[in-house]
């Protein structure tokens, strides 16, 4: 119960850290509200996976003499670098019109079917999206969730004091449920999907925030190297 209340009380803090990524990504997709809910659940699934990884780490922390600050910083740095590259690729990869796929019966290309008109030109991303369509939002959720925001650190500290691994996992799972409630309204971004421009803006914003995360990861690494 404590974990759930902690999650609910600090959920807005989690949104503050995840919103720039999530809002940009959902806008960039240009999906309907129902589609956005589907993506959101994938995002939350990734986040949940991240939280479970941290639950295991928290439990191990209570039992080892690992140099925690250095380990956390190094881990976070690499997560940020990967997230930054992923978001940058998503935001700024070249798009091209898939005319053959999108032409209607009269041979014209409908302007408003934004999802139809856009196809990634990047072979790697296209392969990933075609074969494992849930992987991209889930990966973004995982990497964005592995974020040492203040509520998360609080939960981490509390979880580290749990006696057994299942209790630690349960603690983080309930914390996750508490924070996730605040993410549900984001799916309603799909209401503005008819404005194709917002999709372009969202993608560009995602690319920009990728640059920020890459920079943040680099700074963490530089700080670590400087300290050592």
């Amino acid at each position, binding site marked *: 119960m404590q974990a759930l209340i902690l999650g609910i009380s600090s959920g807005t803090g989690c*949104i*503050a*850290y995840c*919103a*720039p990524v999530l*809002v*940009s990504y959902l*806008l960039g997709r240009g999906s309907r509200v129902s589609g956005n809910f589907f993506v959101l659940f994938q995002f939350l699934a990734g986040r949940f996976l991240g939280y479970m990884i941290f639950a295991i780490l928290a439990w191990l922390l209570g039992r080892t003499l690992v140099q925690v600050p250095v380990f956390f910083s190094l881990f976070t740095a690499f997560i940020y670098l990967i997230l930054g590259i992923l978001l940058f690729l998503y935001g700024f990869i070249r*798009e091209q019109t898939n005319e053959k796929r999108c032409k209607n019966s009269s041979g014209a290309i409908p302007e408003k079917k934004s999802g139809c008109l856009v196809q990634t030109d990047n072979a790697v991303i296209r392969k990933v999206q075609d074969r494992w369509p849930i992987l991209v939002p889930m990966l973004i959720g995982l990497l964005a969730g592995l974020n040492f925001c203040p509520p998360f650190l609080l939960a981490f500290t509390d979880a580290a004091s749990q006696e057994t691994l299942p209790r630690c996992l349960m603690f983080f799972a309930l914390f996750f449920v508490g924070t996730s409630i605040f993410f549900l309204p984001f799916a309603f971004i799909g209401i503005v999907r008819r404005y194709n*421009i917002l999709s*372009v*803006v*969202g*993608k*560009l*914003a995602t*690319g*920009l*925030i990728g640059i920020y995360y890459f920079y943040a990861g680099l*700074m963490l690494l*530089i*700080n670590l190297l*400087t300290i050592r």
Partner: protein
Amino acid sequence: MNDLEKIKKSEPLKGSVLKSLLLIIPMLLLSFLMLSGGQIPSAPSKIFALIMAFIFFNTLFFLMVHTGKTDKFRAIAFCLFALCLTCSFISHYIEARGSMGISDRTLLACKLPFCHIVIPMTLIPMAFTRTIIFPGMIIGGYASIATMFVIWIGVSLALGRGFCSWGCFFGGWDDFFSRLTKKPLIKKISDKLHYLPYAVLLLIVISSAAYLFPTYCAWLCPFKTVTEFQDVTSLKTLLETVIFISLFAGLVVILPFLTKRRTQCGLFCPMGALQSFTNKISPFSVNINKDLCVNCKRCIKVCPTFSMDEKSVSKGKTRITCVKCGKCVDACPEKAIFFHIKGTALKGNYKIGRLLFIYPAFLFLVAFSGSDFQVVIVRLINFVSTGSFLLK
């Protein structure tokens, strides 16, 4: 010859000298009021500065009215405004604290001048937390928060995104560099990048609301290069400095030079993106008479903020990002583009519509920039007489 051609032929924008002089009389009176602030200064150097500023602005306005050309004369004042503000600002801060750098002590004192670019970042925190996330003064002092908000609201209602061409004290920099070459060296910029300012706006609004910190000011604003910035005391501040200087060099100097466009304003500035929406409420717009338009695309080539494209020209209007600089109006060989007052007939007297627009726009430019012009003239006089640009 149809009615439109008759209007075009019979009402050239250029008028007689006497008529132009009569038309600028209100500006003479109003500009004097704005420049003097309601009282004549006592120091000889300030009187001289007042006279010079008065002559300068009114000469430009007279030429604007008489020749029918808007952009050329607007740009002279606009670019000089940017230069004068920089000189005035830097001199003031060197006098006050010995450098352009902002120390932590200065930040904590909450006396930083409030710039209009901060406005988008403050709105959500102000609405939800009743906090202004900027270390400035609400009232009093130099460029207080309340003053800037009032000015911004008033100008937005009147001019819309015309603020970016008639008031923004930074826009003159990339406007200047965009005019240095005769032909652009880079002609094509991806259409997708035209939406980048909105992406920057989205990000800085969300991140500022999340972190309760003006993120654009801290990390991205290129104009810190010509005003003030945090002292370099750590790796973080060093990186911040490298970033904003690089952005200034790239977006304000190099790219405008190469493209002959205002790339900072058109491709990056989040305040410009926000200001675009105010074009919807402004009573003025720039329209195209489709009957006169011969689709030469000259307006698309000259527009500094990418506010003209084939789609908008075919609809007879500019895109929402139009900064109302008048460049397309002046460039159109068929006189098909005109300043229009919303709600009035599209096929009316173009001259009246233009006059009704340039009057408030130019007056705002005078009011906003006048004091900086005069300060620089006073400093120049001081430099000539004492060898120092600083007044103290």
